[in-house]
C-alpha cells in the first residue's frame, strides 16, 4: 500500500527505520504530524538535528553530553572513587532517577555479543581499565582518590552476565571492590506474582539480617 503523496511515503519510510516502529505505527505518526501546527513540527525537526550536531560523548564516562566532560564527571559533589558501569546512556537516566547513587558512571555502549559481531574492542572497556590506572590520576596533577569500587550494573541477560565476568577478570589485578546489582523481587510486587525464575534467583542471593 502506498500513499498518493510522495512526501508522506518518504516520511513513513524514514520513521520505520526507528526501533519498535513498524510501517503501521509510522503511518499513524505521519497522520498525526500532518495535523500538527508547522511550529510544532519544526521544533521536532530542529530537536532531531540538534541532537546529532550538538551531542557528543563525554571523554571520561562516554555518556551523552553537550559539553565535555559531562556535568556528572565534572561535579565535585560526586564520589569519583565509585564507578557504576552501565550498558547504555538510558541506564544512567534510570539510575539517576533513584537519587540514591552519588558516584560516577561508565557507559560501555553495549555488551559483548559475538552473534552481533560485538567484541570487547567495540565497547568502552579499555577506557574503563584506563580510568583505574594510577597514571591517569597522576596526569591531572590533582590529589583525586583512586577508584575504590566498581558496580557492574549491566542487564541480567547472558550477554550482560558474560560482559560483567569479562570485566571483573580484567579488573582483578587492580584490587578494587567489584559488585553486581542484586536480583530480586520488584518493589510493589508480591511474592505471589513474582515469576519462579526471579524468585529462585532471589532465594539464591538472599541477604542475611
Amino acid at each position, binding site marked *: 500500500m502506498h500513499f498518493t503523496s510522495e512526501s508522506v511515503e518518504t516520511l513513513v519510510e524514514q520513521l520505520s527505520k526507528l526501533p519498535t516502529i513498524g510501517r503501521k505505527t509510522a503511518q499513524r505518526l505521519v497522520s498525526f504530524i500532518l495535523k500538527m501546527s508547522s511550529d510544532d513540527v519544526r521544533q521536532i525537526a530542529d530537536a532531531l538535528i540538534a541532537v546529532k550536531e550538538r551531542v557528543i560523548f563525554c571523554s571520561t564516562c562516554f555518556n551523552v553530553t553537550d559539553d565535555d566532560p559531562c556535568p556528572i564527571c565534572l561535579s565535585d559533589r560526586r564520589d569519583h572513587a565509585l564507578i557504576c558501569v552501565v550498558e547504555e546512556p538510558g541506564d544512567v537516566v534510570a539510575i539517576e532517577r533513584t537519587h540514591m547513587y552519588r558516584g560516577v558512571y561508565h557507559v560501555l555502549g553495549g555488551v*559483548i*555479543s*559475538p*552473534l552481533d559481531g560485538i*567484541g*570487547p574492542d567495540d565497547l568502552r572497556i579499555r577506557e574503563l581499565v584506563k580510568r583505574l590506572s594510577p597514571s591517569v590520576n597522576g596526569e591531572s596533577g590533582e590529589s583525586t582518590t583512586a577508584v575504590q569500587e566498581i558496580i557492574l550494573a549491566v542487564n541480567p*541477560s*547472558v*550477554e550482560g*552476565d*558474560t*560482559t560483567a*565476568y*569479562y570485566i571483573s*577478570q580484567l579488573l582483578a589485578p587492580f584490587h578494587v571492590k567489584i559488585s553486581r546489582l542484586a536480583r530480586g523481587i520488584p518493589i510493589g510486587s508480591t511474592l505471589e506474582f513474582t*515469576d*519462579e*525464575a526471579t*524468585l*529462585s*534467583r532471589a532465594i539464591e542471593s538472599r541477604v542475611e539480617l
Partner: protein
Amino acid sequence: MLLHSLRLKDFRAHAASDIQFGTGMNLVCGANGIGKTNILEAIHFLSLTKSFLTSKDQYLLRHNAPFFELIGEFAGEHRKQINVRVAFVLGEGKKIFVNGSPVERKADHIGTIPTVLLSPQDYALTAGGPSERRRFINNIVCQASSSYLDDLLRYRRTLKQRNEVLYRMKRFGPGGGEDTLESWTNELVEIGTRIVSARLKFCSVFSELLTDAHVLLGDVVERPSFEYRGVGGTSLTDKPADIKAAFWSALRREKHRERHRGITLVGPHRDEITFFLDDLDLRRYASQGQHRTFGMALKLAQFQYLRNVTDETPIMLLDDVFDNLDRERIQLFIRILQNEGMGQSIITAARKEILDEFVELDAEANKLIELPMFMENKLTEVPVHTE
C-alpha cells in the same frame, strides 16, 4: 484436571467443532483424515502452547483460513474454572488467554494444564537419538519448574554465543575472540550446572516412578531402568560443586577438539540418557513391541511425576496407540487407565471396536465421540449460477 469442552475454529481439518468430554475415558473415532488426532493436537496446544506434530503454527491453519482459535474449558482440582483460549493469526502469531486475561509469557502458562501424550511418535523416544530423550526430560521438568525453562533458554543463548566465538577463532585465529572465550565458558558452566543438577534430581525421582510403572505393566514388560550420563560423566549422586568441577575438566580435555571443530562439544546439550530392559540396551536390542510398552511405562511414570509435582491429575492423551497392540496389552492398558486416580483420558482410534469389548461406553464418564460431528465439516456442493 478435567477438560469439559473443546471448541476448534479453522484448526487443521476442523472448520468449526464443539466437543463435550466425559470425565473418564473418551474414545474419539472416525475415518482416516477426519481430524481425530487434531483434537489431541488442540488439547496439547492449550496445555503446552504448541503442537506435537509441527513446530510451525501456520501449518495448523485450516486450508486458506487466516486464523484459528481454540477454546478449552478446564476444571482443576484447585482452580475450579480454567478457560484457556488460543488465537493464532497468520503474520501476527499466537496469543493465549486464561480466563479472559492474556498470558504474557508462555512459561507462566506451561504447567497450568498438565497433559501426558502417548503417540506413535514415542517410538523415536526409545529408538531414536539422544536428543529425543533430552527433549522428553526437558518437557517434563519445564512443566514442573519454570526456572528450569528460564535456564534452558539462557543456556541455548550462551551456547550460540560461545559457538560463534569458537567459529570465529577457527576462521580468523585467536583474534576472533579468544579473549572472551573464558567468560562465555564461565556462563556456560554456571547455567549448565544448574540444568544438569535439575535433571539429575528429576532422574532420581523418575527412576522410582518407572519401577512403579513396571509393576502396573508387570504382566507384559521386563524391568525398565535408565541411566543418565551427565557432562564429564556425572551421575545421580553428584552435588552441584562436583558437576561444576567435572564440567570444567571435561572442557579442558576437549579444548583442542573444540577449537579444531569450532563448536562446543561439552555440556548438557550433549548429555546421554540410555534406557535398559532387564539390563539390555533398549535402543539396540529391543523389539517393536518392547519399544512400545517401554514407551507406555515412561508415559505412566511421567503421569505420576507431574501429578506429584503439580498437585493436579494430568489429562492422558492417547493417539492411535492401540492399533498395533495385541488384545492382552490393550486390555491391560485400558485397565490401568480405569484405575482409581488416573483421571481423564482422551483416546483416538480408527475403529471403536478396539475398546468396545473392554469399556462400557456411556454418556457420563466414558464417552464415545464419533467424527464427523457437524455438517460444517463436510464439503457441500455450491450451486453454480450460469447467468
